[in-house]
């Protein structure tokens, strides 16, 4: 995308994202009241990741940002995944009677 810092996003984009975030909130509450077994947490986290991604890309303008910003944001996410994955690789395998 353009490096021009004055990239003005159309208002319709903001309202669409707002509508999507509200709808996804309603969906995640609805899902929590139904039994999908282990899929409950998977669906809840998938919706949260989708909502977070919409905020980052559109409200925080990363979709229109420079490559440098893309690299920094991606690096932060990779480090978060390392934090969670390495921690859980320990705790989920530590005890024999798990």
């Amino acid at each position: 995308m353009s490096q021009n810092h004055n990239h003005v996003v159309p208002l319709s984009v903001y309202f669409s994202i707002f509508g999507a975030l509200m709808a996804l909130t309603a969906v995640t509450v609805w899902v929590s009241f139904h039994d999908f077994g282990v899929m409950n947490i998977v669906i809840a986290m998938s919706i949260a990741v989708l909502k977070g991604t919409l905020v980052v890309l559109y409200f925080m303008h990363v979709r229109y940002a420079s490559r440098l910003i893309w690299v920094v944001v991606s690096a932060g996410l990779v480090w978060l995944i390392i934090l969670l994955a390495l921690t859980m690789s320990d705790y989920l395998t530590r005890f024999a009677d798990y």
Partner: protein
Amino acid sequence: MSASDSPVLPAHHFDDLEQQHAAAQLGMWVFLITEIMFFGGLFAAYTVYRSSYPEAFAAGSRRLDIGLGAFNTAVLIASSLTMALAVHAAQLGRRRALILFLILTMLFGAVFLGVKAVEYSHKWHEHLVPGHGFRFEGPHARQAELYFSLYFAMTSVHALHMVIGLGILTVMILLARRGRFSPEHYSPIEVSGLYWHFVDIVWIFLFPLLYLIERHR
């Protein structure tokens, strides 16, 4: 409008306004990455204990008010919309709209904190604050106390970020009133917006993790 009539100059260590704007954005993102790691530690602790005591976390979660939690989620999403609209107004040099949207964003933020205070008060009266006064029926009392420790740690640190956000927006409104921003120079507004949206994203994850555990039982 005298302030915005005079040409806006970059600080002396920047080549031009474009570079200054890019540097401000990058700086805020680097700060937000440190914030991801800060909250990441709490989320990691939550994941460890929830995987260890799933029943206790579900029992604790059912004591939260899902209506207030969902309402607050909607309020924060609305505040993110008005914050995005504030940045939009700043880009177009619409000072009155900018101030209006910043005030709306602060109002939504204040409503969120008010609801949070009501929830904390309920938990206090229901003896769900960890410590000597903690009372919890059922076989998982100790582990449920752990859940509530994480609930209070995560939501209070999040609320602290909201309070700081309200302080930042107050300063932005004062600067906007003095005509400090223009379509050539609105980095402080955009960077404040990045912070505000980040705090919103943290709540987007806190809401399902704390309020929505096994509600179907």
